[in-house]
């Protein structure tokens, strides 16, 4: 415990006085000093106002904060800790839907690939022509070398062509 000299000005002591941190002797000493010292009274008033402004500002900022997400995060953490405390059985229990879901997803991927994937090199012609009859001067059937697209090329009879030109 320190004794306050009645004629000394000490800002640190004033702050401790304001915070209520002084012992009875120190408190009495500073109060005696304050009665005599105009400078320290003004300094004390300044510190008091500053402290009040600071508290008000902090309060305003705190009021603006939404604590709901924080609350959710805390709840999630608590639930996760609960799972871990229960041991591996709870972990397997939580996976009971994940494993079949993964299996089904793999199945879907595999069969959709085999079902819908286009064969890059076709092994059969795109169309097989079983029969072809008609009135035309010539017909050719062939296929493209790479993708084996079937092409049927025909020339209409001259009278049909002239009929078209006439129309």
């Amino acid at each position, binding site marked *: 415990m320190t004794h306050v000299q009645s004629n000394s000005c000490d800002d640190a002591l004033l702050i401790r006085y304001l915070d209520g941190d002084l012992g009875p002797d120190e408190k009495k000493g500073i109060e005696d000093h304050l009665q005599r010292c105009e400078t320290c009274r003004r300094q004390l008033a300044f510190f008091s106002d500053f402290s009040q402004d600071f508290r008000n500002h902090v309060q305003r900022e705190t009021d603006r904060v939404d604590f709901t997400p924080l609350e959710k995060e805390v*709840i999630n953490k608590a639930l996760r800790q609960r799972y871990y405390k229960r041991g591996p059985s709870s972990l397997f229990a939580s996976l009971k*839907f994940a494993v*079949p*879901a993964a299996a*089904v*997803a793999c*199945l*879907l991927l595999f*069969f*959709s690939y085999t*079902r819908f994937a*286009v064969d890059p090199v*076709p092994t*059969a*012609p*795109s*169309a*097989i*022509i*079983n*029969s*072809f*009859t*008609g*009135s*035309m001067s010539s*017909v050719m059937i062939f296929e*493209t*070398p*790479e*993708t084996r*697209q*079937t*092409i*049927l*090329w*025909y*020339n*209409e009879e001259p009278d*049909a*062509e002239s*009929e*078209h030109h006439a*129309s």
Partner: protein
Amino acid sequence: MKNRMRKVSTMQVRLPVLLFLLMLAGLWMSIPTAVQAKERCRISVDTILASRQGSGVDSRLKQDVSELQNMFNYTSYQLLSSKTLNLKKGESGTVSLPGNRRLKITPHNIRENRADIALQMMKKKRTVFQSQVQLLNRGSLFVGGPKYENGNLIFKISGSY
């Protein structure tokens, strides 16, 4: 907190239902295509005008025409029209084509990866040709030759089922 509990219980109910539906879809996908009955097929007919006047390939045809360009000496390929038919087995559909032509399409049988399709090309009231083809699933048959304007018509007949 109550809301959260309600959400959890809703999730617990929905997840098994979702998994069940996924498993059903997986089973459907796993059935070989040959076993599944196919009653409908989708047939599209694209009409292309190939000519030696002008140059350029219609941007919609670039994929189809790249190989045809190596086989024919046409300089221009233009897509004149596109028509899609959704036909049941035995049902006929007709597509109007340039030059008073009509193409009648009838799918007779759809099995494995091919469909038996009857084609009948008509010009005015006269039948130009009749043909029976087996069209590969997602495959195309190019039927070409008729003169039109300053070039020749090519009909791209594609099927998917």
